[in-house]
């Protein structure tokens, strides 16, 4: 059955992009830990989804059309404010000294292969991200504390650095739904059929995935996404 708990991730640098789904983070780490994938090997969008080997994850899951739906809510965070920063890259002319004589030519820096980059990044000032889960608390926490040091995009440039992972017990299972008077609020992206059955509020219907790998077209279907 597993225990009900929430995972709290405290951040100490701005988050670039969106907060990830916890099951995706855990699955991607465990694939390498459980040696289901060789180093450098990747599943691409062109590969059939059956090629994806599902590791054993310390989260409670239920099957839906052979897809495991892990009991973990979508990320919940309060965004203090958003701001913009630019990611810049351009070839410095002084390095042309290293080039061979016949390579010292003029190159376009406004278009083409060697175009200068000034990429605007959408950054979010967030103190912490929370996920509600059902599973084995200590195992989940151990995987996160030992392997995940930053989340979001552009992690190599110092965004989304994590200061601590914490886990706290909660009384009820909020991973799929949270009770609100007579209604239930959707907490996780689930197949559309899940919200048709019951009196559920707080979602929009989209076309996407509800189980890792979230980016693979083999997982796409009509889903209810919490809003």
């Amino acid at each position, binding site marked *: 059955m597993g225990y009900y708990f929430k995972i709290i991730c*405290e951040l*100490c*640098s*701005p988050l670039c992009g969106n907060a990830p789904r916890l099951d995706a983070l855990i699955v991607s780490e465990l694939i390498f830990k459980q040696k289901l994938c*060789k*180093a*450098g*090997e*990747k599943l*691409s969008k062109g590969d059939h989804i059956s090629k994806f080997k599902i590791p054993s994850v310390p989260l409670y899951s239920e099957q839906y059309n052979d897809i495991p739906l892990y009991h973990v809510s979508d990320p919940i965070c309060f965004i*203090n*404010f958003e*701001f913009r*920063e*630019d*990611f*810049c*890259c351009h*070839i*410095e002319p002084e*390095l042309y*000294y*290293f*080039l*061979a*004589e016949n*390579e010292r*030519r003029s*190159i376009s820096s406004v278009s083409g*292969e*060697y175009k200068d980059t000034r990429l605007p990044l959408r950054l979010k*000032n967030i103190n912490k991200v929370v996920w509600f889960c059902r599973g084995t608390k200590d195992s989940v926490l151990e995987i996160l504390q*030992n*392997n995940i*040091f*930053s989340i979001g995009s552009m*992690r*190599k*440039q*110092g*965004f989304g*650095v994590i*200061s*601590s992972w914490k886990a706290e017990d909660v009384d009820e299972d909020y991973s799929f739904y949270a009770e609100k008077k007579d209604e239930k609020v959707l907490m996780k992206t689930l197949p559309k059929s899940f919200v048709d059955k019951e009196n559920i509020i707080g979602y929009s219907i989209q076309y996407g995935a509800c189980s890792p790998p979230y980016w693979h077209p083999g997982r796409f279907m009509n889903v209810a996404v919490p809003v």
Partner: protein
Amino acid sequence: MVMGNKTNTYKIYCLLETLSPLTHMMGTSGNESLINREPIIYKNRKVYVPVISGNSIRHRMLRKSGSIYLIKEMGIEGNLNIDQLDFMFYGGRLTQTKTTTNISKIAEMEELFPLFRLLGGSLKNQILAGSLDVWRGLLICEENRETINKYLPEEFQIKERLLPADLFIGNYQYTRGDVKNIRDVSSLTKDAEVISEREKSDLMIYNGQQVNRNSLFFHGFSTKYVSEIEIGCLFHSMQLWSEECGTVGGMAAKGHGRVIINYIMNNIDINISECVISYINHVKNNKENMIKWLQNNFPGRKKRGSDGLLL
């Protein structure tokens, strides 16, 4: 096989001290350059504090100094093509529409180039992930104290109250000389056209913000599953950068951005000097293979023969 070394995860905390004004800019307002700042919440207010981007630290401190060392050691100065230069100094670009994942190619690169295993990059048709996260440089000031303490382990926590960020920010002003005002300008050149051109006034005053010298910045690195050779590469590149009067930010030609670096590691169980020596030995032993790998993966432009066919 060099990657057979035991891999581990490390965190390295660094302290940068500015020895000259630091001008790491974010843009301009009119004629004034503005120092790069990030908004943070401090005492329920939004305040802007100076920050050095991780991208800048990564390039200056590691990739550039490390690549220059590799080029000199391989003896290929003046023999690179532009794709090789782009890959070594800027990480390369994904330019082919058909992307592939060639595992043996990635493995070969990671074995040969510890620097690029750390920093990652991109071949023409595949992206290579790095294993080093470079943290942003945070000014050590009262507004940032809470954030810096979140990064630091318990024994290094900053307990005392610090000075506010505004006290570390100053201004610079430079003037580009007016040639018209130089006496006997005509004696410098006989060219009438140049003389008439120079008679136009080009006096320009330009100014901007700076972080004053003797300010301190906190930053660091976290490495995931790296061997001792990669740690050696990291410290060797930092050492080279520091020895060559390492700078951060712009206007280094005017003496700006000179910094010195101090570092500590919390989970240290390795001898850094030995790691650096093993990295240097690795580069010396694998020169030929490195050159071959670069030539195979970045062959450069194909030349056309006299008949117009690609050679």
